């Protein structure tokens, strides 16, 4: 039991947690863009799956990881356009179109995998890059500065996303459209254009989240690789109160609980895996309750905008 609190174990848990947080960060920050503009995209998991497959396939064929990332971003964009078309232009019920997009992505990625690859194969993904000097600091170096490129990118995304949402005109437009589309519209902001942009940006990041999974974390593709990870990412957006920093906290909390649970098992501490798997969801619901009281959600969230209404 004392082993659990040794430095090596703590280092191990935190290193795992940082690594595991990567796909959640990409997907949840992306979803935050979409939701800030008022569109709930429940199809993140489906986009991630297609992104993960495409990145895997391109790596398998060309060995070029950058091309793989680019391809994943591109299919993310295409899926985002589809989601925008249904949810923004056709003003469909977002919860339902998201489920449709998820089913479509799940089916498509499995179908392509069956047709183009057929059997599970591993690829050479992104290698761990030890950052000079910083990576040599005991404990800290191992936890924070010995990861692969997508992991660093995911954490860099957090401040960049904050800056974009809070400090740029585009970010302000996104939030205005999410809070009061009618007012934004009367000021000459094209609500549909901004929502298309936000949903597509979010979907590109979801595609990258999938790519980070298949080319950096597990280095392979299998049907339903994400196993519902995208849905957690959507919940993390609420958890984080639509703020990148809040999402970071939520993602780290979630991944730390998972890493902690695995280490406990390795060290022979017996806990029920069912309870362990349930815990994060219970935490999220609790967090939803507090989050909604603490911060204001985009007022027009989940509401299609039609000129002349309201």
């Amino acid at each position: 039991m004392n082993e659990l609190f040794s430095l090596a174990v703590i280092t191990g848990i935190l290193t795992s947690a940082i690594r595991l947080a990567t796909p959640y960060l990409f997907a949840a920050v992306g979803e935050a863009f979409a939701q800030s503009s008022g569109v709930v995209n429940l199809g993140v998991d489906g986009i991630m799956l297609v992104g993960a497959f495409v990145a895997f396939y391109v790596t398998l064929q060309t060995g070029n990881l950058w091309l793989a990332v680019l391809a994943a971003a591109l299919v993310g964009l295409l899926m985002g356009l589809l989601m925008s078309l249904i949810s923004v232009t056709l003003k469909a019920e977002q919860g339902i179109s998201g489920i449709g997009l998820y089913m479509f992505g799940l089916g498509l990625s499995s179908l392509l995998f069956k047709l183009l690859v057929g059997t599970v194969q591993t690829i050479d993904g992104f290698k761990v890059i030890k950052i000079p000097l910083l990576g040599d600091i005991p404990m800290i170096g191992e936890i924070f500065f010995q990861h692969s490129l997508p992991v660093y990118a995911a954490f860099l995304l957090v401040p960049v996303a904050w800056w974009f949402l809070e400090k740029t005109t585009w970010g302000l437009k996104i939030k205005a459209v999410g809070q009061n589309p009618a007012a934004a519209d009367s000021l000459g902001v094209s609500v549909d254009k901004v929502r298309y942009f936000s949903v597509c940006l979010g979907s590109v990041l979801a595609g990258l989240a999938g790519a980070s999974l298949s080319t950096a974390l597990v280095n392979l593709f299998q049907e339903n690789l994400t196993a519902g990870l995208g849905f957690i990412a959507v919940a993390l957006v609420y958890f984080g109160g639509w703020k990148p920093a809040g999402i970071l906290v939520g993602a780290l909390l979630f991944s730390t609980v998972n890493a902690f649970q695995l280490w406990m098992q390795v060290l022979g501490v017996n806990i029920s895996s069912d309870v362990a798997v349930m815990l994060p969801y219970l935490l999220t619901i609790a967090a939803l309750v507090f989050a909604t009281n603490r911060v204001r959600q985009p007022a027009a969230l989940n509401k299609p905008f039609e000129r002349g209404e309201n």
Partner: protein
Amino acid sequence: MKKHNVWMAICALLVAALVLTACGQAATPAPAAKVVRVAVVMPSSTTDMAFSQSMYSALVAVQKEMGGEAAMEIKYSENMFKVPDAAAAIRDYASQGFDIVVAHGSQYGASVEEIAKDFPGTTFAWGTDVNTFGLPNVYAYTAAAQEGGYVNGVLAAKLTTSKQIGVTGPVEVGDAKTYIDGFVQGVASVDPSITVNKTWTGSFSDVALMTEAAKTHIAAGADVLTGSSQSVVGSIGAAKENGKVLWFGTQSEQTTLAPELVVASQVYDWTAMIKEIIASRAAGTLGGKTYTLQLSNDGLKIVFNAGYNLPADVKAAADAAIEGIKGGKITVNP
């Protein structure tokens, strides 16, 4: 009203397209008269590198041996992890007149019991379990996964230098449990001081969590890993990324996933069983028997990776374990 017309046009186009694609296809030739018709219903994909693939590959191998599609027809339903859908598929194949319906999942038992009564002329084979429900048209099959687990355990114990071995499992049920129990016993038979740590992810399909479980084992000092279920491809990926950690496979041959690191795989070979079921049916016996894949009946095979340079004395120890189990000198508890 304009919109209405647009839809009509789309509709017409659609019909036209359907007809056109239909014309472009040639008629399929009628199947020859005496074809053995086999259908299989599986919980995961035919390409899962594990349980489902082991059965599908065996069927295809038997088909090839018997003379291709002219002699044996195979139909499959994959990803039938929802039992209700699987039950519908099993019933459907039976009512379509398939000779043999393989229900490849222990969760299908209740459905097989019910459906087999309605189709007394159809042979049903299901596993992994030992229960034929007392029905004359049901075969049950199972794999003594603990035997190969034991052999893998002996190999692992000889190869570990850190004296720490990691096991990544899904849920502690079925052959995931028996394989790992046998593995632990095999390790202990060589050196009881070696620690075997086990993790259960609670899911048969969560590859990402399985990968992280393997990485956790590695970080905790394990230099040999094994595990069961279709999600272990993640563990193998983790071993490959590390580059030094060895892997032992089960269910299907997993060498291709990490050719330098997979030492050996226990392979389920159902071909002999399938051939026997087909032959018995031709002779008039529709079921009523239980098959157990064992090392002694060649249903289980330890496939060594030719690309891994296994020391001669370790190979000898494994061979001794295999012979010991075959000859009954070593008993492995399920």
